[in-house]
């Protein structure tokens, strides 16, 4: 618990960060920068979890551990995504989202 700071304020920060990530996901033209935005977004949730745990239900560590696991899973996600991006780059020498639309309609 941070002295003098309310739970609403921390949650507001993390929600704003989350939607900044969403904005990045929606607008970036490059697969890796989309991935970066995703990380921003997932970490915002982790922050949210931890803060809720600390402020509202401090008698155990459920949110805290959830945050730990989110971090681990997010890392795993990045690993898979980067592997595929590298493969894609080998094939088309680009990581631009606009090039990734052979499948449509």
């Amino acid at each position, binding site marked *: 618990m941070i002295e003098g700071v309310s739970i609403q304020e921390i*949650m507001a920060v993390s*929600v704003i960060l*989350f939607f900044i*990530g*969403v904005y990045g*996901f929606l607008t970036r033209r490059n*697969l890796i920068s*989309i*991935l970066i935005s*995703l990380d921003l*977004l*997932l970490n915002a*949730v982790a922050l*949210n*979890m931890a803060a*809720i*745990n600390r402020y*509202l*239900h401090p008698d155990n560590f*459920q*949110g805290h*551990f*959830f945050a730990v*696991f*989110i971090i681990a*899973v*997010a890392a*795993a*996600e990045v690993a*898979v*995504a980067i*592997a*595929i*991006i590298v*493969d*894609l780059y*080998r*094939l*088309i020498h680009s990581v631009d989202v606009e090039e*990734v*639309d*052979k*499948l*449509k*309609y």
Partner: protein
Amino acid sequence: MDWQKLILMRDELSLTVLLLLLLVLEIAMDSRRKHQLPTIALALFALHTALGFLPLASGHLFGGMFHTTPMLQLMKSILNIGLLLVLLQAHAYVRSEWVGRERITEFYFLLFSSLLGAYFMISAGDFLMFYLGLELASLPVAALAAYELSRQRSAEAGIKLVLSAALASGVLLLGISFLYATGGSMYFEDLQKGLSPNVLSVLGFLFFFSGLSFKISLVPFHFWTADVYEGAPISVTSYLSVVSKGAAVFVLGILLVQLFPLYADIWREILVVIAILTMTLGNLFALRQTNMKRFLAFSSIAQAGFILLGLLAGDSRGMTAVLYFVLIYAFSNLAAFGVVQAIALHTGKETMSEYEGLYRSNPRLSLVMLLAMFSLAGVPPVAGFFGKFFLFMSAAGAGYYGLVLVAVINVVISLYYYLLVIRAMFLRKSEQPIAHFVSDLPMRISLVLCVAGILFLGLYSPVYEWVLGLVL
């Protein structure tokens, strides 16, 4: 903790052992004998599936993080059957040049670990296990979708899946955090008491629901589906459309009833709207597809819309209808995918027009496809009809006559495009029809099993009663 109770995790443990065995084999086996791996994996998994049918008590473990009941057991068994059929169909594919000898073990390893994730998701007793199960179920599949390294489409499917899935789980996590804030716990047991509708928890519920809907490909959370289904290897697509989707449907059914009974007014309303959207849009898009995989993708989207009808009632009768439907859907859909797989493997052809005249050259394959289409369209007397019938019956029982009417109209629309496939195979002549070929033995076994399922599941009533008995 009483370690003897670990037997409750029988299926998870057995699958984990299987995973480890695969790793050992990969290391210990002579690389010249690697081509036997598919058969070994298949045999082991068949054993595992058989094991899953042994009765098991209900109970929970790890302070309630894991729980199991006969119904959950049955759900896992249905997924097992689905994966077993997929493996049979993948048998020849795995040995083809697309996979390559050095990556066979990994293929099975990823599939099995994804199934393990589905198990944990179903058996989860808290949000953390649920989340981990969900990710374990989906991340390996993203790698599998991109498995055909030399095809751009495969990589594209993989990246689309992993990015969309990550975004969806982000939204889902945000929802969970809000639910946690108001409900005071991550454990379902406590949340059941702690949750009541208020502005924050409703928002949390809606985010959570959206994230889960992504997995079931409900409209408007479905857009990734068609692209990924088309681009991924066919075995992976069939896995996604049957096992992944089935697991997510089961979980949604469990959670809506268990965790959100107080939100019933809200989710009923949502389900009605989304069911209508999903059926209709799935159908409208399916109408215009020419690629068989893409066609089946939209058809499976529409089918998911029908499943929602069974969830509406929120009682055991509806849940039985859902389980029964998914079981039948697994057989019907995999019969269709099996044929597509066999043809793609032998000729590389995937578009509907290339199927023209198939009946002349490959009568048996086209008959299997005919049955699959009839079953997916819900034409009596094949099993698909009964699956749909019970869903409609349960929705009608809950008073949703209008929705049933819409569903029925959609059945008629869907009939049209399923008939398109039949027309191509049976009624069209082709200059260059697909030449006659004989599939490999596992593929034939899987098709025979699918046909048997399509023909008899609907008519052989003990199956239904067995499902009902386990759900109650």
